[in-house]
């Protein structure tokens, strides 16, 4: 550690770190539009420029390392003028349609224009004309709003290992696009939505299905059912000013009822169902020497990733549908039968932390008799929009319980929201299926936390299993390549597309930093710690549905309703 001088104050700095990191720790706010923590600085936006004694020009603080004795002015008139000019130039080729923009009041560019006091249009010029790409069922690209910060390109390439988009053309014609500038729908995009999460403007957004859901809610003929994913209850509160990680389960259930949903179910229930099938499948594969390592199939971005980049691993993917799709399937079969409702009149909505779930819901192999199991997928952000639209005040609402029979869950199902959680849940049940006994300590510490690749070995009876939980598909690439090279002795792999799992999914509230994501994760662990039922197979409604309807895991009926298949995809990679 040494000291540098920032705005005439002494500040502690660590050797080797960039000035921006030092400033952040010291509580000095310097704006940036292109910085991605943890990745190599790109220095693209120049918003973070500061004045350094002895250096003639302005220096981008994100890309310049600290030196002992350095004297920095972060908000000198010159630095502020430069930032303001940059924003004004960006605005000169921006649609300025903030009132109509999905990111209104939640936009980095808008915030900076306000903070820097932009009050007049000093630069006018030709506005670039672009077509909006709405070809994808999950993500909409509006290049006119793009400021070319490059964050989406870097997250897609460096974090997700997908590289569906890049800078194309040159100079004033530069834009972000796919290979051959084609629609996202036919590109290698896996719909994870991490690009939306990092986008500082409205250039990337989810495809909204709010209208479809509202129409269904207002249609007296429709029986509208909603399910919410395990991570939603610990993130939705942020949209309403609650502190990150606060669990709003009961309030959210109440709000969903006020919105007019006829039944409110918990996807954590079908996560329990997934575990029944998936743990049984793992046991079956181990006993019959089936394709191992088995890989989880809950995360639809990961599924598309395997289908296009690693088709040789398709047989390794669990054939289990994701919890969203299992819930959709049992609603339109078991539930509709027992309640005497025509499945054609059921409109099934899911609230997901995920944009790829919108794509998953449209997969043709997941429809039965030409009818989709899920009719509309909303992200956490879209749910917040509907709640605001209806003027519901979450702070003044009495918590309510979910509906039976798909509202009861074990805490194992709730753990699906965080990286490592599916694995932990599966091990708890696999242990019971193989030995007939419960784990003495259901918590597997090595699978917890935000590390991108977590590996451990567990003993189940006299069987020892190698386990890996991976999040962020760049990490999945590393692991798959190691497996291909024969370097790993692993039997079961959990992959979540987004770094950290669904708590950091592409449909979650924006502007989350690492602390926010940690808080979300901590709450899921606390829910598990305090739960009475911690194993999926001990969920009494799970037992009931097997007794009344499904029979046994992996048997004919469950196979027909709860399992699926995958196929190789030929896309431009």
């Amino acid at each position: 550690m040494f000291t540098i001088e920032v705005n005439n104050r002494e500040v502690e700095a660590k050797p080797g770190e960039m000035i921006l990191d030092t400033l952040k720790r010291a509580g000095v706010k310097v704006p940036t539009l292109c910085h991605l923590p943890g990745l190599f600085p790109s220095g693209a936006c120049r918003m973070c420029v500061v004045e350094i004694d002895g250096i003639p020009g302005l220096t981008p603080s994100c890309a310049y390392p600290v030196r002992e004795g350095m004297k920095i002015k972060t908000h000198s008139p010159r630095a502020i003028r430069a930032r303001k000019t940059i924003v004004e130039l960006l605005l000169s080729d921006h649609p300025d349609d903030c009132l109509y923009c999905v990111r209104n009041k939640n936009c980095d560019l808008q915030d900076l224009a306000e903070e820097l006091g932009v009050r007049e249009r000093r630069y006018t010029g030709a506005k670039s004309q672009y077509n909006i790409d709405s070809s994808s069922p999950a993500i909409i690209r509006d290049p006119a709003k793009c400021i070319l910060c490059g964050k989406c390109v870097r997250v897609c390439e460096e974090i997700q290992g997908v590289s569906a988009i890049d800078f194309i053309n040159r100079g004033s014609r530069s834009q972000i696009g796919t290979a051959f500038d084609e629609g996202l729908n036919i590109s290698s995009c896996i719909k994870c939505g991490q690009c939306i999460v990092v986008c500082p403007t409205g250039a990337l957004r989810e495809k909204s299905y709010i209208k479809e859901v509202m129409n269904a809610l207002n249609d007296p003929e429709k029986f509208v059912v909603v399910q919410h994913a395990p991570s939603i209850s610990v993130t939705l509160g942020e949209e309403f000013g609650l502190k990150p990680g606060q669990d709003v389960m009961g309030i959210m259930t109440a709000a969903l009822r006020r919105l007019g949903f006829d039944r409110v179910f918990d996807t954590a229930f079908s996560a329990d169902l997934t575990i029944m099938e998936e743990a049984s499948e793992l046991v079956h594969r181990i006993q019959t020497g089936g394709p191992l390592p088995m890989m989880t199939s809950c995360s639809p971005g990961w599924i598309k990733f395997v289908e296009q980049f690693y088709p040789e691993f398709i047989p390794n993917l669990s054939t289990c549908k994701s919890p969203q799709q299992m819930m959709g399937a049992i609603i339109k079969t078991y539930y509709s039968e027992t309640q005497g409702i025509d499945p054609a009149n059921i409109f099934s909505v899911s609230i997901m932390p995920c944009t790829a779930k919108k794509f998953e819901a449209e997969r043709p192999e997941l429809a039965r008799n030409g009818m989709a199991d899920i009719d509309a997928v909303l992200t956490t952000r879209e749910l917040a929009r509907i709640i605001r639209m209806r003027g519901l005040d979450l702070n003044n609402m009495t918590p309510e319980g979910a509906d039976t029979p798909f509202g009861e869950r074990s805490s194992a199902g709730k753990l699906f929201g965080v990286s490592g959680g599916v694995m932990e849940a599966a091990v708890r049940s696999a242990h019971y299926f193989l030995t007939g006994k419960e784990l003495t300590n259901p918590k597997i510490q090595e699978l917890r936390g935000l590390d991108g690749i977590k590996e451990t070995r567990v003993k189940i009876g006299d069987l020892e299993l190698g386990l890996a939980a991976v999040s962020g598909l760049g990490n999945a690439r590393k692991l798959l390549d190691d497996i291909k090279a024969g370097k790993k002795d692993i039997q079961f792999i959990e992959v979540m597309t987004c770094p950290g799992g669904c708590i950091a999914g592409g449909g979650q509230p924006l502007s989350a930093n690492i602390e926010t994501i940690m808080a979300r994760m901590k709450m899921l662990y606390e829910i598990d710690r305090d739960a009475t039922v911690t194993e999926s197979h001990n969920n009494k409604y799970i037992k009931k549905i097997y007794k009344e309807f499904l029979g046994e895991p992996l048997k004919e009926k469950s196979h027909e309703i709860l399992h699926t298949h995958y196929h190789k995809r030929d896309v431009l990679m």
Partner: protein
Amino acid sequence: MNYTLDDILQKHPHAKRDSLIPILQEVQEQEGYLSKEAVKKIGEHLNLSTSKIYGVATFYNQFRFEPLGKYHIQICRGTACHVKGSSKVLDTLQRELKIEAGKTTKDGEISLEVVACMGACGLAPVISINGEFFAGVTADKVKKILKSYRRKVTENV
């Protein structure tokens, strides 16, 4: 001599990303343009995504992504031609052909390319069709030239 795409890639064994531009140039020289199939194969060879390759290739004017037309029009946008009004000629060509520069008409007959300078400044504004030069071209003149080539297309000569 004719090389296939595979021949070209074989000439660059263990190539890394810094070989991308030479490979793109060789492929375009051989095939006339960069097809999706070629870009995909080059990507596999260099372990680069197609979006990255497309990004690099669109940065430069020299690469095209559609086959050349039977008649390839080059229009000079160098300084002398610009001063003499080549921008209007380009506008006219794009409007008449209903394509942008760098593209080929839907029937595959005529393609259009912008070049920086043909070294024929004395003839400005100048265009060349399959190597045949046309001097002092105006918007009206270029329409007539196009008409004569369209006739050649329909008469299939």
